[in-house]
C-alpha cells in the first residue's frame, strides 16, 4: 500500500515537472473546442444543441493524446522493468498509474469543461450535466486507453495504432456520456439512467482493464 502511494506521488510529480502535465491536455481541449465552431458555423442555437457532443469528443481526443506517455517513458528509462519485477502486483501498479494519469490529465479537463461549455452557449443545467458526465466518464476512457497503451508500448509508431485499437472500445462511454449530458438539459430520458450506466462503465473498466493491460505489459514489454 505504501509502495502504491509512493508510486502515485511519483507519477503526479513526473507529470507536473516534465511536459507541462495536465496543462497541455487542457490547451489541446481548448483548441478542439475553438475549432468546432469554425467548422460548424457560429450559430449559437446549433452549438448549444451539439455542445455536449463537442466537449465529449474533445475530451476523448485529448485523453487519447496523453495516453501514449502512460507507459512509454517508463519503458524507455527501464523503470517499467523494475515495476514488473517488484513484489507489488503489476495489476495494482497499472491501476495506480492510471489513477494518477487521470488525476493529472483527466481531472483538469473536467474542471475546465464548465468554462469551455460557456463558449459553446450551454446553459446552467447542460453545463452541470456535461461536467458531471465527464467527471464520471473520463476514468473509463483512461482505463480503456491503458490497454491500448500497454499493447503498443514497445512499438516505434505506436501512437496511431493505439488510437485505432482504443477508439472502437470507447464508443459505449461516448454514447452514454453524451446522452447523460443531453438529458440534463431536458429531453425524454431522465438524467440518472444514462448517468448510472456511465458510472458502471467506468467502474467495470477500472476493475477489468488493469488485468488486460498488465498481461499486455508482461507479454510485450
Amino acid at each position, binding site marked *: 500500500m505504501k509502495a502504491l502511494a509512493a508510486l502515485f506521488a511519483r507519477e503526479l510529480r513526473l507529470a507536473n515537472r516534465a511536459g507541462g502535465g495536465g496543462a497541455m491536455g487542457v490547451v489541446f481541449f481548448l483548441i478542439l473546442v475553438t475549432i468546432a465552431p469554425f467548422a460548424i458555423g457560429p450559430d449559437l442555437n446549433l452549438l448549444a444543441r451539439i455542445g455536449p457532443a463537442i466537449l465529449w469528443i474533445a475530451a476523448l481526443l485529448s485523453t487519447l493524446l496523453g495516453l501514449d506517455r502512460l507507459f512509454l517513458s517508463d519503458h524507455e528509462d527501464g523503470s517499467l522493468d523494475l515495476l514488473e519485477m517488484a513484489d507489488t502486483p503489476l495489476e495494482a501498479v497499472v491501476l495506480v498509474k492510471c489513477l494518477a494519469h487521470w488525476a493529472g490529465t483527466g481531472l483538469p479537463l473536467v474542471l475546465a469543461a464548465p468554462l469551455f461549455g460557456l463558449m459553446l452557449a450551454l446553459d446552467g443545467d447542460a453545463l452541470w450535466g456535461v461536467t458531471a458526465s465527464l467527471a464520471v466518464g473520463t476514468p473509463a476512457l483512461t482505463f480503456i486507453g491503458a*490497454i491500448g497503451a500497454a499493447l*503498443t508500448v514497445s512499438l516505434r509508431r505506436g501512437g496511431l*495504432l493505439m488510437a485505432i*485499437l482504443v*477508439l472502437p472500445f470507447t464508443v459505449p462511454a461516448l454514447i452514454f456520456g453524451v446522452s447523460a449530458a443531453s438529458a440534463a438539459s431536458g429531453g425524454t430520458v431522465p438524467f440518472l439512467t444514462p448517468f448510472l450506466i456511465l458510472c458502471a462503465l467506468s467502474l467495470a473498466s477500472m476493475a477489468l482493464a488493469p488485468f488486460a493491460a498488465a*498481461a*499486455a505489459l508482461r*507479454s*510485450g514489454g
Partner: protein
Amino acid sequence: MLKYANPTFFLRLVAAVLPWLWAATILTLGVGLYMTFLTAPADYQQGETVRIMYIHVPAAWLSMFIYMVMTLSALGTLVWRHPLADASQQAAAPLGAGFTFICLVTGSLWGKPMWGTWWVWDARLTSVLVLFLIYLGLIALWNTIEEPLMAARASAILTLVGVVNIPIIKFSVDWWNTLHQPASVLRMGGPALHPSMLWPLLVMALGASLLFVCLHLMGVRNEILRRRLRRLSYLAAEAADHVLEPQTEAGA
C-alpha cells in the same frame, strides 16, 4: 488432441483433407446459389431483393462465428502458448474482416430499397461496424509487431477484450428499438421463415462456413510455412556469418 496440434501432422492432415473440403464447398455453394436464384420464391413484399438475404445473413453469422474462433485461438495462445493457435488467430482476422465487410455492404444494398436509406445509426448496424473496426485494429496490430510470438500475445489480449462486442451485436435487436429486424431463424418457438426460404438460407450458411474453413486452413498452413521460412533464413544468415568470419580475420 495434442497429436493433431503438432504443426507437421497438421500440415499432412490439411493436405489430405483440403481437396475434399474444397469439393464440398463448391458443391454446397453451387447448390445454395442455384436455390437462391432459381428455386427460392420472391417475397410478396420485398420482391427479388429478398435474395440478398442468402448472402447477407450467412456473412453476418460468420462475422461473429469467426470472432469466436479467434477468441478460442486467443485462449490457446495465452494459456497453452501453442503456435497453431497463433497461426489460427492470424489467419482468421482478415477472413473475419472480409465477411463483416460483405455483411455491411450487402446490408447497405438491401437497406436502400427496403428502408430507403443506405445506412442508419441503429444499434445492430453500429455494433457490426465496431466489430469491423476491431478486426481492422487487430490486423494493424499483427502488421505492426514484427516478432510473431509477441504479436500473437498482444492480439490475443485485444481479441479477448473485444469479445464484449459479440453479445452486444447478438442482442442489440432485442435490447434496443432498432430498424433492423429481430432474429428470425435462431429464436424461441422455431424459425419465423417459410421452409422454401429457410432451406436455401441454411445451405448457403453451410457453404459459406465451409468456405471459411477451407480459407482458414489454407491461411494457417501459409502461416506455418512462413514461420519456417523465417527460421530457415535466420539459420542461413547465422551459417553465412560463420563462413565469413575466418575470411575477414585472414584478410586483416
